[in-house]
């Protein structure tokens, strides 16, 4: 029942995001598409909050009278800087919630939260709680009617739980109930939670190698400038000074943080706790509703592993480590070891391994690190069969991934496709081999640039196509580049992909000539 509902939400959400991302993609290219950098943007807004918070801290007087007065001083008397800092602090906090919620929802609809990715998903939850906690406490510090409302209602809500022998809301009964010490404690709490939040964010990205915690520069500059515009156009201001002898009747609440508070007036406090607990439990256990079926994990074939570190560098999930050699090899000191709990079976390591090369007479093709169910032998057979099945003057072999545009029935004469768990699982040497053995063109596709299901797959593919240095396996210079095309197409981009492949095929004009694919190697670094 719950799984069916979740799948329906996922499908609807996916359509929504695909449409939004396509629209944004017209004006934001590749990595600059804001939907591809939601997590990084959340980090960025956190940095803005910390920076502006330090400035506000310098002036803030943690006392009953001083709290409201100093914030007002910054807003009104020092509007040209202090006021802007306050507004940026407020709006960046709201932007943090917005990007965080979109980030969570997007990862959910794209199914990037189950299997080995559960750790990253679950460790995001404490960060989410701390963000709300810190934000709400921040509003207390202003000590206006909004701060009063949040303080009183939060403690009344908390008191529903049988954890205090005395209701904590009694601390806000009268104006004399609140002391200066209270504001000092709240200020320390606000800062301490932010520090814990930073630690929680670091844990959140722990299992992700090369975690992108900074958005692209264009996006960073653009969002900052427009937040600045918002701060100047609609500065954040305080409401009336808090007065515990009067009810704050009409309040301009911040809906990003306080959306749950109005429910307290219409439901019972227990009902609101039940809602929050249900959402929390759902978020925490989502990776197992249902659990991802057992994914094949990478396996190291020690006799072909030189401990070169290339698979470790390219793995997007910190799933491979190097350890001292266990087989006493005379030349190699280290060996790759797979951390099975972190491995998602993307096969990027196979694409990175220098031993992943086409057959040289051996019966069974093996490599240093491989995915058992979709190993390099399977890739070789699938590629050969796809090519053999083509009956056309110009044959194009398409390599794509399971998460990008659908490769079945592209409907183009002379084009066959092979799907991999990730396009970066394709060893670069296969491209030359297939061109020598019947293909007139090789076309690579996969998820949209900046939005790879396996995070870095299409980045590695582009580097392998263009890099001029030997350290990473790359496409040799002697392979004619005009015979290789690529187009990064998302799950809903099948039609566009087919059009681009069609154009690519037409651009090849004639079958490849043997001279074009001579195996005479050039010294890397020297041009033809």
């Amino acid at each position, binding site marked *: 029942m719950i799984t069916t509902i979740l799948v329906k939400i996922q499908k609807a959400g996916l359509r929504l995001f695909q449409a939004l991302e396509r629209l944004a993609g*017209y004006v934001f290219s590749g990595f600059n598409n*804001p939907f591809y950098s939601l997590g990084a943007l959340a980090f960025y807004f956190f940095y803005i909050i910390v920076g502006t918070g330090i400035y506000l801290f310098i002036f803030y007087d943690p006392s009953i009278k001083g709290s409201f007065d100093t914030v007002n001083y910054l807003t009104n008397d020092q509007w040209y800087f202090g006021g802007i800092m306050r507004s940026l602090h407020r709006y960046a906090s709201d932007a943090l919630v917005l990007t965080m919620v979109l980030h969570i929802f997007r990862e959910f609809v794209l199914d990037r939260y189950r299997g080995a990715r559960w750790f990253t998903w679950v460790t995001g939850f404490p960060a989410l709680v701390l963000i709300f906690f810190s934000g709400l406490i921040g509003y207390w510090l202003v000590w206006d009617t909004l701060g009063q409302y949040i303080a009183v209602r939060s403690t009344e809500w908390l008191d529903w739980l049988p954890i205090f022998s005395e209701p904590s809301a009694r601390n806000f009964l009268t104006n004399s109930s609140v002391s200066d010490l209270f504001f000092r404690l709240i200020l320390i709490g606000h800062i301490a939670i932010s520090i814990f939040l930073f630690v929680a964010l670091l844990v959140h990205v722990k299992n992700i190698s090369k975690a992108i915690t900074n958005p692209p520069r264009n996006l960073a500059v653009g969002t900052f400038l*427009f937040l600045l515009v*918002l701060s100047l*156009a609609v500065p954040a201001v305080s409401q009336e000074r808090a007065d515990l*002898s009067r009810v704050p*009747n009409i*309040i301009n*609440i*911040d809906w990003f943080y306080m959306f749950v508070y109005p429910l307290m007036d219409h439901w019972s406090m227990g009902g609101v706790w039940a809602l929050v607990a249900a959402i929390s439990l759902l978020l925490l256990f989502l990776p197992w509703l249902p659990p991802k079926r057992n994914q094949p994990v990478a396996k190291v074939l020690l006799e072909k592993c030189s401990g070169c570190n290339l698979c470790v560098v390219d793995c997007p999930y910190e799933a491979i480590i190097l350890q001292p050699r266990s087989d006493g090899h005379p030349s190699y000191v280290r060996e790759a070891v797979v951390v099975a709990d972190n491995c998602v079976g993307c096969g990027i390591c196979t694409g990175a391994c220098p031993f992943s090369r086409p057959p040289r007479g051996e019966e069974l093709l093996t490599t240093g690190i491989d995915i058992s169910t979709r190993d390099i032998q399977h890739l070789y057979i699938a590629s050969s069969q796809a090519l053999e099945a083509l009956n056309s003057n110009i044959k194009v072999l398409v390599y794509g991934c399971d998460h990008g545009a659908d490769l079945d029935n592209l409907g183009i004469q002379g084009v066959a496709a092979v799907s991999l768990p990730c396009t970066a699982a394709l060893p670069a040497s296969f491209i030359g081999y297939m061109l020598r053995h019947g293909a007139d063109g090789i076309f690579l596709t996969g998820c949209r640039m900046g939005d790879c299901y396996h995070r870095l797959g299409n980045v590695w593919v582009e580097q392998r196509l263009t890099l001029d240095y030997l350290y990473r396996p790359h496409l040799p210079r002697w392979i004619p580049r005009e015979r290789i095309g690529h187009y990064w197409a998302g799950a809903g981009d099948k039609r566009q992909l087919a059009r681009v492949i069609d154009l690519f095929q037409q651009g090849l004009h004639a079958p490849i000539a043997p001279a074009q694919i001579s195996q005479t190697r050039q010294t890397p670094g020297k041009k033809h």
Partner: protein
Amino acid sequence: MKIFQYLGQAFWYLLFIAFIGYFSTSPAYTFMEPDQALIKLAFNHAGKLKLPCREFTAEELAAKPKQMRIKFDCPRERSPVYVIMKVDGKPFFDKVISPSGLAKDLSSPLYERIPLKAGQYHLYLGMRDHIDTEGLDYEFEGTITLAASQILVIGFDSDLKEFTFE
């Protein structure tokens, strides 16, 4: 063409800040209607001990280890506190508050929000803090006037044994 790209980006950024700018403060939320007032009935009163001290019998004392042979048995458990509030003769609040603490030996805390329209009311308050009491131990009866948006805190001074109004 670049200019259209920048304009398109500006559109997305404007959408972003418009969304943030609006929901950061709007729509305004009416927590309580402006003609309403709020009574907070809040105190922390310890009920009397549920049972009086009694002297241990000689047999009971003999059964105890030497270092635990004290003369009296004084149970720590306190009586629950019963509170009733009537407004213009109608019962508005009526509750038995158990003592806090695992041994039920601490005070009985009360915190209750009672919204009322602004105006003049005849108020009756009663409290019983011992289970053996017939009727009520403490009472208050009088007229109160609530201004719009006013918060009236009704407490109980355990030393003076009377209700307080703040």
